[in-house]
């Protein structure tokens, strides 16, 4: 199976693309599906009484069902289309958090959350008087069972947890977190943005109350996020954005709202991205998670072995490989990550450098920023070899100036 062959960008550009945690490249199947949609189907779903629009409605709603099945949601109306994972999290914060939290309730997050699962809760916390607390990581860059049990208490009403850290690649024990949270009467929001492209998600087995992810990090287009929520919770939440297609009756002063899922989908949606996501799911299912993990684990093992041999590198990595995906953060001692990234770029290697939208985690680790490599199924050992050569080049350029 030559997966790289399916990705035109990787054939057109002579680069080692090692930033799939930021966004994945798109397979030709997804690109063609979107092209075909525009050439044969383009119209506004839910609006037209003509066949073309009805067909688009069908494509749109069938994809919703496909996504529901993909994450094993009980009902397809539990799948809400948003602009991105950030909007999904804001929807939960504003529609659920703002209306249920009271003074002295607790919102518990992990220190490795992306800003998108922190900043909305700061706003909700300030407005409701609920307290914001964090679960911290141990020397293995993991949240221990003791930390989970210590922080999630009877006062906790909401727990926000990323399934996989976008900086550390740590896979959090969300099964345990959800169990403890439910025992204490709290609802759990799982950010699956960095996990769903790597591992099977079953929302019923997890018993997650909410789960969010982004289409563009799983081979599909940008501009589309998914919100999963349990039907009974979503039904009791007020709408987030107001406008067309989310209404039942609109009078001069008042409006009644549409049922799920339309209640949360105001305005014309990103239908071509939904089409792309449907095809991306077919693509992933065709390869299968077993194979995906096999490819990723082999690549990750190879990359870590190679990086460990470079004596000038600091890795931020759990030693428990079973709790780790294909995200690897590191620093070259004495060289700023932005300089490393520029030199790597000049050598055809794309990595991310910076704080990765995780400033609280950086502060906790007492660093400003890291270099981050994030691997996906289309990467090869040659990509990693290219990375290693470029890192050696960067180090050699700076070596004599490092104090």
């Amino acid at each position, binding site marked *: 199976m030559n997966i790289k062959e399916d990705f035109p960008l990787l054939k057109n550009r002579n680069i080692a693309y090692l930033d799939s945690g930021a966004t994945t490249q798109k397979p030709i199947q997804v690109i063609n599906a979107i092209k075909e949609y525009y050439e044969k189907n383009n119209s506004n779903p839910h609006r037209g009484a003509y066949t073309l629009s009805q067909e688009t409605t069908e494509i749109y709603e069938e994809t919703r069902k496909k996504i529901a099945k993909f994450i094993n949601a009980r009902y397809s109306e539990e799948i809400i289309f948003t602009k991105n994972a950030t909007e999904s999290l804001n929807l939960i914060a504003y529609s659920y958090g703002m209306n249920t939290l009271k003074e002295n309730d607790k919102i518990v997050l992990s220190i490795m959350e992306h800003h998108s699962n922190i900043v909305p809760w700061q706003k909700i916390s300030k407005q409701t008087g609920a307290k914001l607390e964090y679960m911290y990581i141990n020397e293995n860059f993991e949240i221990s069972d003791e930390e989970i049990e210590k922080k999630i208490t009877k006062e906790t009403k909401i727990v926000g947890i990323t399934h996989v850290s976008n900086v550390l690649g740590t896979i959090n024990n969300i099964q345990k977190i959800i169990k403890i949270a439910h025992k204490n009467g709290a609802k759990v929001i799982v950010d699956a943005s960095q996990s769903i492209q790597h591992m099977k998600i079953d929302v019923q087995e997890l018993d997650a109350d909410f789960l969010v992810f982004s289409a563009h990090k799983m081979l599909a287009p940008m501009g589309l996020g998914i919100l999963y929520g349990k039907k009974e919770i979503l039904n009791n939440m007020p709408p987030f954005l107001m406008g067309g297609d989310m209404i039942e009756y609109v009078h001069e002063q008042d409006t009644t709202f549409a049922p799920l899922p339309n209640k949360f989908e105001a305005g014309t949606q990103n239908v071509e991205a939904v089409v792309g996501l449907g095809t991306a799911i077919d693509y992933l299912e065709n390869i299968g998670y077993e194979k995906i993990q096999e490819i990723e684990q082999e690549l990750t093992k190879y990359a870590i072995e190679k990086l460990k041999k470079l004596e000038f590198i600091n890795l931020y990595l759990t030693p428990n490989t079973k709790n780790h995906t294909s995200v690897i953060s590191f620093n070259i001692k004495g060289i700023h990550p*932005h300089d490393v990234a520029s030199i790597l770029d000049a*050598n055809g290697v794309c990595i991310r450098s910076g704080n990765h939208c995780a400033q609280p985690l950086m502060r906790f680790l007492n660093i*400003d920023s890291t270099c981050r490599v994030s691997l996906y199924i289309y990467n090869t050992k040659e990509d990693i070899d290219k990375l290693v050569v470029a890192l050696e080049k960067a180090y050699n350029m700076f070596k004599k*100036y490092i104090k």
Partner: protein
Amino acid sequence: MEDLTDVYNELIMEHSMNSYNKKHLEKADYEEIGHNPNCGDEITLELKLNNNIIEDMSFTGHGCAISQASTSIMIDTLKGKTVEEAKEIIETFIKMIKREETNDENLKKLEDAICFKNVSNMPARVKCALLAWHTIEKILQEKNIKR
């Protein structure tokens, strides 16, 4: 692929890794923090004026080689200049980085700071090179942060 040794040259490397301008001033008249939220680079500029002349400057903080060297070389360039001269140099530097000024004759007044010319070919690093210059610009425009 282009070679980056024209950007990471001897002068820039020396200033970024071992700058004699990285210290506190005894008595600064003005102090201002410059911050790039996307990359976390943060510098604090200190400035001592003698009437209309920039008598002394220093910086503290952390960041990439380009932001640190740009800060240090800027200090070398602006020290001893009048506020008016400094403003002109700052404007020219910003224009050079944004590729709005390419005339070598006009760029001469930048002295050593001309070594950042190639950063204009690296859009991702423009804000690193400009951090200190925007910060001093702010001090000279506002001059309202007294210690």
